[in-house]
């Protein structure tokens, strides 16, 4: 008698292999899915770990800084330890004057350099571009040392101008590269159309290219200003600090970052309080500049269409 072939013969090698593949595949899928779930979970945990200190910084500055904000804070000059009251008016003036001088010099120079880079592709332009990139990453304290050597040593005294010089050098490469990027983003046919009408290159730049690149330029400039105003280390080596009101940039000045730095390590609660207030003010100014640059860029972009 012939043995009957049962339908699910265990000896059938093809079916056996298929079953084995299926079990291996489903085990692998389960393993991969579990692994994926764990790894994605770790990403979420890292997100939480990152958010906690960042929110902590902002929340602390707001909570500790707001009580320091009163009329005196914005109108009086800093008082030495032991004397109650006092504000940071001298530091606000110093930061504003230094920021204004640095911006007034760095923006035109930076934009012209940006134009140069955007219009040149040679080896020299490449080297300048590389230099600018490296300069954006140079430790700011070395630029403070440069401000000290170049201005303080030569004039014989600390001054707001030396600080503005250092801050301007920190802002310059940022404005250059942001300007170049914005100008390169302008469609080339705008250039060609203007040139075809017989316009000179200078006219094309002033009337066509720069206006078209304006949203990007403004964003870059405001971000550079925000960065410059928050710099502390270069100011420590150049403006020295001044507890009296000083509008004259050829004299030593006070600045908000300096107040924060000098008062935060003081053992007096009222001085630490002033440091928190100054930190909140500086943070608000920087955030307003950053947010303002975005809003302005968006508005200009919309108007152009």
């Amino acid at each position, binding site marked *: 008698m012939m043995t009957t072939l049962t339908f699910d013969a265990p000896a059938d090698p093809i079916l056996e292999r298929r079953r084995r593949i299926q079990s291996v595949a489903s085990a692998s899928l389960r393993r991969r899915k579990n692994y*994926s779930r764990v790894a994605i979970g770790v990403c979420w945990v890292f997100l939480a770990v990152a958010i906690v200190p960042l929110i902590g910084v902002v929340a602390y500055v707001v909570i500790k800084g707001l009580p320091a904000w009163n009329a005196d804070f914005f109108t009086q000059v800093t008082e030495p330890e032991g004397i109650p009251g006092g504000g940071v008016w001298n530091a606000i003036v110093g930061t504003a004057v230094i920021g204004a001088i640095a911006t007034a010099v760095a923006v035109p120079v930076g934009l012209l350099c940006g134009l140069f880079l955007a219009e040149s592709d040679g080896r020299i332009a490449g080297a300048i571009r590389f230099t600018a990139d490296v300069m954006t*990453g140079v430790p700011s304290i070395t630029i403070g040392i440069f401000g000290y050597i170049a201005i303080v040593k030569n004039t014989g005294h600390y001054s707001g101008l030396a600080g503005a010089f250092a801050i301007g050098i920190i802002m310059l490469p940022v404005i250059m590269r942001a300007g170049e990027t914005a100008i390169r983003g302008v469609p080339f046919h705008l250039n060609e159309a203007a040139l075809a009408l017989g316009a*000179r290159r200078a006219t094309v730049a002033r009337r066509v290219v720069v206006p078209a690149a304006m949203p990007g330029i403004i964003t870059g400039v405001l971000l550079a200003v925000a960065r410059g105003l928050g710099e*502390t280390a270069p100011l420590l080596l150049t403006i020295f600090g001044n507890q009296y009101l000083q509008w004259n940039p050829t004299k030593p000045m006070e600045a908000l970052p300096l107040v924060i730095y000098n008062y935060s390590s003081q053992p007096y609660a009222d001085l630490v309080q002033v440091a928190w207030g100054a930190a909140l003010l500086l943070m608000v100014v920087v955030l307003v500049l950053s947010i303002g640059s975005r809003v302005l860029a968006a508005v200009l972009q919309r108007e152009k269409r």
Partner: protein
Amino acid sequence: MALPNGAYRGLLATVAAVFVGLVLWFVISLIVQAKPAFSTLGFSWIVQKTWDPTHGKFGLLPFILGTIETTAIALVLAVPIGLGTALALAYLVPHRLRASLGTAVELLAAVPSVVYGLWGLIVLAPLCREYLEPFLTSVFGWTGLFNGPDQGVGLVLAGIILFVMVLPTMVAISRDVLAVVPNDQVEGAMALGATRWQVLRKVVVPGARTGLLGGLTLATGRALGETVAVALVIGNSPYIAHSIKSPAATLPSLIVNNFGEATGTELSALFGAGLVLLVIGVGVNAMARALVRSTARGGAASVAVA
């Protein structure tokens, strides 16, 4: 103001030359001012161990080590946490929240470093002394890296503050480059049956690695050169740290703390410290740029092969 074309090109070239001149002036003046230190102390002072101005000893080794150690602690924390956060912000967070969270991170990158220093000194230092350092000592004490008293200020805290400070920069850049990995590659991997994590790990991260390296470079540069945030929380001790909890100092904090009273050789030695810092900073930057260029080429080639 319609300049003739030649004059216009001349003006631009002149301004660009002014920029180059400024940079050259910067580097040369730093070298010239640091030269007295090199001529009286030779070159070996850079790697000597003792900083003792009253006895004419200006060894920079403790500060170079301090700079490297704080940066290393910051990066050990920032690389995994920054990458995980950037992945979450680019692919895991619900679509509606992505834009606003991304903007928030970018804004945090603009917060001045002195604010982080203030927060670290007043809020984090006590927490570090009371909770974090005892905990670390009890868990990792056997390594011998956590000997000594819990002081709050020191290498650990400086590293943590640098981590918090560079995190927004790193996340903002990483998120941008992760988000622009072509969608069809992501969808292709999913169609082949890859899990969510496999898509991120094998497609998104490799596709963005050039930009990720760029973000890492920027973070490293900021951590190496940060002055005030570190000077506030590191404890400023001119000795080589024996423990991760010890107070220490970095090159920038050395400069900023001693600048006011320094004269003569000490002042020149501080300029020399600035020069060393500049060399380290530019070196890291140039190395990373070369690395980015080579991986970018490799990336393009692998895409072409695929």
